[in-house]
Each structure stands twice: as C-alpha cells, then as structure tokens.
C-alpha cells in the first residue's frame, strides 16, 4: 500500500473532489444556511438573518404539511407496489428458461423513458376525449362514459401512482433479477432433495441472498419517490387544488414563482429531514434487525 500524500491524493481524487465540492457540497451547505435567512424578492434579494423564523412559519403552513403527507403517501404506496410487482416478475422470469433476453429488454423499456416523457405518455392515455384508456374501459363496459382521470383529487393521485409504477417497476425488476442470478443452483437442488416446497425455497434460499439487493432497490426507490418532481410537474402540476403537490414541486414553486429563496430552502431541508427518518427506519427494519438475529 502506497502512503497517501497530499500530492498523490490530489492526482487521484482531485478532479472528483473539485467537481463534487463545487456542484454538490457547496450548494448543499448554502441551502442549509439559507434556511436561516429572509432572502427573496420582497426584500430586494438582500439576505437578512432571521434565526428560526422560517421554521416557525413552516410549522403553521398547512400547504407544507399537505405536501409532506402526499409525498410520504406517494413514496410508501409506489415503492410497496413496485417491490411486490418487481419481485414477482423477477422470480417469474428467472423460472422461465430461454427467450428471457427479449423479455428483459421489453420489461426495461419504461425505465429508459424519461420521466417527464412518461408523464406526457400517461396524460394522453388518460385524456377524457382522446385517451385510449377511456375508450377501452367504455368498450368493455367497465365505465359508462369517459372519465377525466386527472380532474379529481383521488383519481389524479391514482393516475400518478400508476404512471410511477409503470415507469419504475423495471428498475426494481432488473436489480432483483440480477440478484436471483447470484443464487447457486445447488442450493435449490439441495432444498428440493430435503423436500422443501415453493415457500420454503423462498424463505430459506431466495430471501437471505436477496435481502441486500432488496435493500438497495428499496432505498434508491424511496429516495427517488420522495424527490418526485418531473412526473407531478408535467402530469398534474400539483393539482387539482393542490392535491398532488409534492415537497419538490412546492419548493420549486416557492423558489421560482414566489421567489422566496430562504423559505424554499426551509421546505427542502425539512423534507430531507423527514426522508432521513423514513430511510433509517427502513435500514433498521431490513438490515440491522437481521444482523442482530444472525
């Protein structure tokens, strides 16, 4: 092992550290600092230190709490659905030998679609006049007349969930599928000799190997679902009546439309704190508990 001198560190890490420092670390710190300032259009963009006043205002801001509840609900429902469907698909495709290359490619397609584009895809599919979903549902008499899916709060939330699940099940599937591929075939054979059925295999062979892959897929999906912006911004714009406004969309509006930079930063930092709580709960549930029991 060559000792790490300053010159050597600069050679290997210098570029990466500079880039991350400029584009990630500094902006992160600045956003955190801005939460303590009144900074925006109203005071002519001259930052004024106001202590925790932004957080006091946030505490009484029902729009913030609504967006937090929507975001948490959205993340919980989509990640759960994506996990169940993605895991099921990974098991099913793995058990089918042959032809799976094309199946995997087909299943990966929604993941490569840009999220903003996926949102447009679903806006048209669900359109009340020109959308194919209404045409199919009326043809098979599930509904009598076309529905404006994005027009009422409950349906719009459902539509966002469907679009998100469509777009990101492939990601979960791909990770879990490659996880299943790492399980040695002999383990299953040994299990079969011992007379283990489907559930026993799942519980004692598949799951222990898959747990790490599941953790990776879930943590990434939770982070992304919590940050949801593109999908909401393009599909519903946060409407109708603010019912689908996520933390990111509310913060974006506060920044770019109301030009309140200090308060926008406060919304984001508080949202991130909530995300940290959820993620550590997930970590304890999935990883730590098993380390103690093992």
């Amino acid at each position: 092992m060559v000792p790490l001198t300053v010159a050597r560190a600069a050679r290997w890490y210098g570029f990466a550290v500079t880039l991350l420092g400029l584009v990630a670390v500094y902006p992160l710190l600045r956003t955190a600092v801005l939460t303590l300032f009144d900074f925006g259009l109203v005071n002519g963009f001259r930052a004024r230190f106001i202590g925790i006043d932004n957080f006091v205002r946030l505490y009484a801001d029902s729009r913030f709490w609504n967006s937090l509840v929507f975001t948490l609900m959205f993340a919980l429902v989509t990640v759960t659905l994506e996990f169940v469907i993605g895991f099921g698909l990974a098991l099913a495709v793995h058990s089918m030998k042959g032809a799976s290359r094309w199946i995997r490619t087909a299943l990966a397609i929604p993941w490569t679609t840009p999220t903003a584009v996926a949102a447009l895809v679903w806006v048209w599919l669900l359109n009340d006049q020109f959308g194919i979903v209404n045409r199919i549902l009326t043809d098979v008499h599930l509904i009598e007349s076309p529905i404006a899916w994005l027009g009422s709060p409950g349906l719009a939330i459902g539509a966002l969930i469907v679009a998100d699940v469509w777009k990101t099940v492939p990601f979960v599937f791909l990770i879990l599928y490659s996880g299943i591929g790492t399980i040695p075939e002999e383990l299953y054979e040994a299990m079969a000799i011992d007379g283990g059925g489907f559930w026993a295999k799942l519980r004692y062979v598949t799951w222990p190997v898959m747990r790490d892959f599941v953790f990776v897929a879930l943590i990434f999906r939770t982070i992304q679902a919590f940050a949801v912006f593109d999908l909401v911004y393009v599909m519903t714009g946060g409407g109708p009546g603010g019912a689908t406004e996520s933390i990111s969309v509310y913060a974006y509006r506060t920044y770019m439309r109301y030009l309140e930079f200090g308060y926008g930063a406060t919304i984001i930092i508080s949202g991130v704190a909530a995300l940290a709580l959820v993620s550590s709960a997930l970590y304890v549930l999935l990883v730590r508990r098993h380390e103690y029991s093992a």
Partner: protein
Amino acid sequence: MSTLLRLLVFAACLVAIGPLAWHLVSSIKTSEELNRVPPTIAPEGVSLDNYVELFARRPFLRYYRNSFVVATLAALLCLLAAAPAAFALSRASTRRRSSISAGLLLMAFFPPIVYLLPLYEMVRWADLVNHPWALIGPYAALNLPFAIWFLMGYFRQIPKELGEAAALDGLTEEGFFTRMVLPLSTEALLATAVLVFIFSWNEFMFALTFMNLETSKTLTVGLSTLSGAFSVEVPWGLIAAGIVISSAPLIVLIAVFQKRIVAGLAAGALK
C-alpha cells in the same frame, strides 16, 4: 403453473410496451383521424406529417442536438473524474474505502432540488444561463457517486498480483492504471458512460430552470413545454411523435447494453 406464469410475464410485457406502442401508432395517424372521439385503435392511413412538422417547423433537431451534446459531455466528464478516484479507492485500505463509500452514499441521498438554487446562482454568476455547460457540470457531478461505486466494484475484481507484477516490471501506479487497468475495464467504463448518458438525457428539473431559450432547450423540456405554444388544442400528434423520438435512442441503448448494465447495477450497488 408454468403456463400461468408465462401468461403473466407476457401480460407484463404488454403493459410495459403498450403505452409507447400506442404513441408510435398514433404518431403516424393523420390529424383528421387524431381528432376523432373516441380514438381509433389501428391507424387507417399512414402519414409522417407529425415528424415532418416536428423537425421542419419546430426546433426539435435543435433539442435533439442539445440533449445529445449535454448527455455525451456529461458522461465523458463524469468518467474522467470517476475512474481515477474509483481506482485509488479500490486500492485503499478497507477502512478508508468504506468511510468514503458511506460519504458518497450520503450524497446520493439528497433530492436534486437541494442543489437547485445555489447552482442557479452559480450559473447566473458565471453567465452560463442557456449554455450547455450549465447542465454538463451538474450532471457529471451528481452522477459521480454512483459512477465511482460502479467502477470501484469492477476495479476491485482485477487481481492484486497483476499490480504487483506491473510494479516489478517498473511500471508506476499511473502507468499501471492507464496502460493496464483502463484497457481491461472498457466494458465497465462503457456501461457507466451509457448509464450517465441515460440519466442526463432524462433529467428535467435543472434543464427546465437553466435553459429557457428555444435554441437551448433539451428534448425533455422542449417536449413538455410544446403544448404551451398552442392556445386552443393540445397537439397530440406532435407530442406522440416527440415521445417516440425522445425514447427511441434510449431503447436502442438498453437493448444493446442491457446485460452489462444490469450486472453492473447490482454489483456496483452492493460492493
């Protein structure tokens, strides 16, 4: 049981492809047919009008070029920063490696909007609004943690003996890296570049904020702001054609690189 499974997987494939296939089919309908309520399923005639309009009368060629330039340069810049760092990390002590990995994971944890405002201030300060570099830098940096992981996982599989042999032959660490490690890792480098390219091509929020001139917009932003240019009706035919052309390059990439990307996604994420 297995027939049922096959049917279910087949149905899932249909659901995955269906929505895009519907837009592909719709994009070649005539505008008369597109305006019918309820919509037709199979097209009655074939027309390329939507594509012609997109490229001839709207700046989609420009959007395309912008997305391509930004995503390609971001991928290259990201590799340039990630590869040496990942190599040095792959040979660092376990303690240092895991603490730096944890730091990188922490970075990936923050939603991109955390960086938005300070980056916007910097972009304006550097007079880079509407300039491709306003996006290239952030895309390269924000994909860096993942790229370093991904490559580190790969570099660690290169046998230690190879490095020792190279040192005995008088090769410096740098020489070993550029003349042996990099050529041995072309697959991993390519897979990383493809993924950064896809993420950059797909990005929306920064592009929406930093690019407001028609000549500077990327595809995702140009396409999603397209209907704003029409006052009466939404140009579904144009949007359908735009959806097809903005997804097509990525579908080709994923079809070609799928195996390597998937292997890397899992390996890189777990090591």
